[in-house]
């Protein structure tokens, strides 16, 4: 696996959403108001949990089949694939990628979701996979539907898939969302617009990848993910020890 022996490059907060983004109302009471304390990485930050393929089931990455009961779920059959890299451009191998999403009608299998659209009896809406030696991953699913949420009266989320990345060190931990190229709801989405930089927002929009589609079977979208990279410890002694 990729083993960072050095600390991570300082996070570029300019690429990230601030804690407080009033356009997304829920952030108002849940955002720290004091400055974060900057912490030079120690072992506690550049180590992190290691996951093994044997912990995952053979269908965990196939959302078309991993909750199928009486048949397959309704919706556009879709492959989502890409590569997890670090800021140095290296593939992040053997890292845990987890996803969750609404069904094709925009309804989540969750006891707190009361949207009108029906539950799909054959769709759980979550999956997980471990990247290969090059950092590549792939899921198969149905394209999620848009759905309303309580922000403004008429706020709708564009179709999206939630992604969770474990990384090789705990300071790389990341949760994000992937959107689908061409969705007209993207420009007005209050969640995506928590990210101030338009170029950064664009990196969450996965392009259609027709070359990765399976003819007569499934369309494909490509979503590459970048986790924090490690810093070269030029002119420095080893970080650990006295």
């Amino acid at each position, binding site marked *: 696996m990729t*083993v960072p022996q050095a600390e991570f490059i300082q*996070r*570029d907060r300019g*690429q*990230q*959403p601030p*804690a407080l983004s009033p356009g*997304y109302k*829920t*952030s108002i*009471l*849940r*955002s*720290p108001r004091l400055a*974060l*304390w*900057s*912490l030079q990485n*120690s*072992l*506690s930050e550049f*180590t992190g*949990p*290691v996951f093994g393929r044997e*912990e995952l*089931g053979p269908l965990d990455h196939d959302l078309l089949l991993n909750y199928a009961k009486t048949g397959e779920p309704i919706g556009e059959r879709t492959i989502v694939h890409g590569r997890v*890299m670090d*800021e*140095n*451009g290296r593939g992040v191998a053997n890292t845990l990628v987890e*996803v*969750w999403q609404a069904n094709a009608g925009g309804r*989540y299998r*969750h*006891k*707190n*979701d009361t949207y009108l659209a029906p539950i799909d009896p054959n769709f*759980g*809406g*979550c999956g*997980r996979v471990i990247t290969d030696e090059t950092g590549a991953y792939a899921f198969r699913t149905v394209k999620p539907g848009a759905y309303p949420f309580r922000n403004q009266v008429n706020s709708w989320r564009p179709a999206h898939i*939630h992604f969770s990345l474990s990384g090789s*060190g*705990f*300071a790389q*931990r*990341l*949760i*994000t*969302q992937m959107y689908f190229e061409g969705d007209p709801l993207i420009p007005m989405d209050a*969640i995506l617009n*928590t*990210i101030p*930089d338009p170029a*950064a927002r664009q990196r969450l929009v996965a392009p259609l990848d027709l070359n990765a589609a399976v003819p007569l079977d499934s369309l494909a979208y490509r979503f590459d993910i*970048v986790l924090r990279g490690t810093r070269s410890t030029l002119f420095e002694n080893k*970080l*650990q*020890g*006295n």
Partner: protein
Amino acid sequence: MTTLEYLPETPSQTAGPYVHIGLIPHQAGFDIFEKPFGNILVGRNTQGERIRIEGRVFDGLGSPCRDILLEIWQANAAGRYNHPADGQTDKPLDPGFRGWGRTGTEFDTGLYRFDTIKPGPVIGRRGHKPMAPHVNIWLAARGINIGLATRLYFDDEPALNEEDPVLRMIEPAIRRQTLLARRENRDGGVVYVFDIHLQGENETVFFDV
């Protein structure tokens, strides 16, 4: 800067109200994976003092948040992380202990819990004293745009805490109190109570790691 070939980190987005589906599906109301991840870090053979960590997460009005995802990452009882980059080879690895767990605050009570062991002290950065026993915490939720990192220290380790290189740097010193978990004995077991305040008078210290 722009001419160098570094890739920018992917932007974070909120985990949203339905984070449970993907990361702790049983809390969303269904089972799907044969081996789900959870909040019990200990097995029968895990070395060290059994403890429970328990607490709530409060918003800026002091209301408990009932949809927070929490993850912890910690060293074993000897103070070694179960990770190949931990070079403290003088300390034993505990094969029965990964040192990681996740859970969500409960929808009704707002409480979270982890069953784990008390970690040992971990070596500090070069030139610094060892770090007092601590548990690294990361939380994500609806309304939190980018995951928050903090640390739990143990209030019954005053001497080690006093020397801890991370706690020592926090000013004003009164804010260090927000990182101390309170030891309680309950029903023959040890519980450390650790409440997290996202904002307000007792805002917890969060780190830019």
